[in-house]
């Protein structure tokens, strides 16, 4: 068995030196007008160019490339014109982890991680007969004969069992969407910027009861990229490098197809172990975190994360949301860009650049003062990953 202290070699081994993204606010309008501004590779290219410019590096300095899951690795490298000495393909959080691993082990010095997704204009289906993700997660397709294909419905089932077990209310869950809209109202890069109230939330229609429309992420086009460099090099070339300080992971695979880890423990054991590993590596705990970023394809992820990663006692997430708060003025600023619910649905990638922005102190009106440590968590299908960024 591994103990939490066994993986500290990656601690501050690498740092983010460049961030970039496509203009998804403009492209949202264009897509709604029937245009197709770019394909997934085009969005990736826009994001990469912006990140490279932000880093001040030349394309020739990039010797590692990680493609996100929605583009083919080779074609993305071809479009970007990069022949790296190391390459891979991964989701948002694992791209960061694998970039750090490659850098620490000497396989690369400067890694670009690049994501592009034309899911809106391509009509990608996350529910229904063509539901995406079944190749990776059998639960996304196995229950189709009974009418269960949408990923939102999986989280609706989770929340129904969770609120029964913990006593949380729909109105308390509504605090998540309200808080994130509060943040996005101060983010010029957010697609949904109109503030809402808990009353608006409760009056909104159910998509899959007990989840309301505001509990669901957006579906939009866009791209995100980051440049991650070896730590000493990063310090030389960048005024405000953002270091990867802590990493932890724990996966729940047993019983996953029949949804048991979602419906009985609500991912808690995985989150607690991922949290312990990442806090041990970082050298501090949740009390030292200034900003939390949670993968929020559905609002339900947020209360699960608050409990699982130690921000409140198990069973207290509803009270925490109501009394301490995660929105502007709240005790634990969470998803400060607006998250998937209100800023952009970049499958966790935009959360990474929001972590960096908060630590650089460049968030303008929504900047959290004296931000030193930002925690990103994801728990997609019970695979809990905990990532801590620090100045």
């Amino acid at each position, binding site marked *: 068995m591994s103990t939490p202290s066994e993986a500290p070699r990656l601690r501050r081994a690498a740092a983010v030196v460049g961030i970039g993204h496509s203009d998804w606010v403009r492209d949202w309008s264009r897509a709604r007008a029937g245009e197709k501004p770019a394909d997934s590779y085009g969005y990736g290219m826009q994001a990469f160019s912006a990140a490279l410019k932000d880093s001040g590096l030349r394309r020739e300095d990039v010797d590692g490339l990680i493609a996100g899951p929605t583009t083919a690795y080779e074609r993305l490298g071809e479009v970007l014109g990069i022949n790296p000495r190391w390459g891979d393909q991964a989701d948002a959080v694992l791209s960061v982890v694998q970039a750090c691993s490659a850098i620490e082990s000497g396989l690369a010095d400067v890694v670009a991680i690049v994501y592009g997704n034309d899911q809106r204009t391509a009509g990608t289906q996350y529910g229904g007969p063509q539901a995406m993700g079944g190749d990776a997660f059998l639960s996304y397709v*196995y229950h189709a*004969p*009974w*009418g*269960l294909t949408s990923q939102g419905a999986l989280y609706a089932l989770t929340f129904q069992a969770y609120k029964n077990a913990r006593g949380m209310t729909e109105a308390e869950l509504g605090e998540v969407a309200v808080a994130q809209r509060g943040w996005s109202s101060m983010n010029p890069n957010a697609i949904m910027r109109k503030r809402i109230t808990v009353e608006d939330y409760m009056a909104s229609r159910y*998509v899959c009861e007990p989840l309301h429309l505001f509990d669901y992420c957006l579906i939009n086009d866009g791209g995100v990229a980051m440049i991650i460099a070896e730590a000493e090099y990063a310090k030389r070339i960048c005024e405000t490098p953002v270091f990867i300080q802590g990493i932890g992971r724990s996966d729940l695979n047993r019983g996953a197809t*029949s*949804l048991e880890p979602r419906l*009985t423990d609500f991912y808690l054991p995985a989150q607690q172990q991922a949290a312990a590993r990442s806090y041990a590596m970082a050298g501090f705990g949740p009390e030292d975190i200034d900003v939390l970023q949670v993968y929020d394809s559905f609002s339900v992820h947020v209360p699960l994360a608050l409990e699982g990663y130690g921000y409140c006692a198990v069973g207290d997430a509803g009270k925490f949301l109501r009394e301490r708060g995660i929105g502007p003025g709240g005790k634990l600023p969470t998803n400060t860009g607006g998250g998937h619910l209100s800023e952009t649905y970049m499958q966790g990638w935009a959360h990474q650049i929001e972590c960096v922005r908060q630590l650089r102190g460049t968030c303008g009106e929504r900047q959290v003062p004296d931000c030193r440590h930002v925690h990103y968590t994801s728990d997609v299908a019970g695979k809990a990953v905990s990532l801590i960024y620090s100045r």
Partner: protein
Amino acid sequence: MNTDTAQTPSPVLGLYDRPMWESIRKRGMHLQCCQGCGAWQYPPGPGCTACLSENVVWRPVGGGGTILSWVIFHRQYLAAYPAPYNVIAVRIDEGPVMISNLEGDTPSGNWIGQRVALTYAEMPDGAVLPRFTLAA
């Protein structure tokens, strides 16, 4: 859309799923039970996920279960399932969790913890599905 002839969404039919669906078609659902440790499993697979024994045999289930969670779809995703309709998660008495639908009367309050009994529904296109009704 004419739901009378809508096709029931096809099940995943991997190598180990076929005997289960054959038993469902005969209205006597069988699941795999491990000869080594006695664990039942769903979905079916190449061996026992509890102890890795490959000595698993098909046995009929008793048909009882308890609701773990439920949802009501208010949006239609599939031709065979016009909204609103329910989906339930049931822990069957043998241990595994199954996703299904609750037919007939539904509880007025909380569905969680309600006892249910296995039934077989014939869909308009002839497909047979294992579903549940509230236990008498």
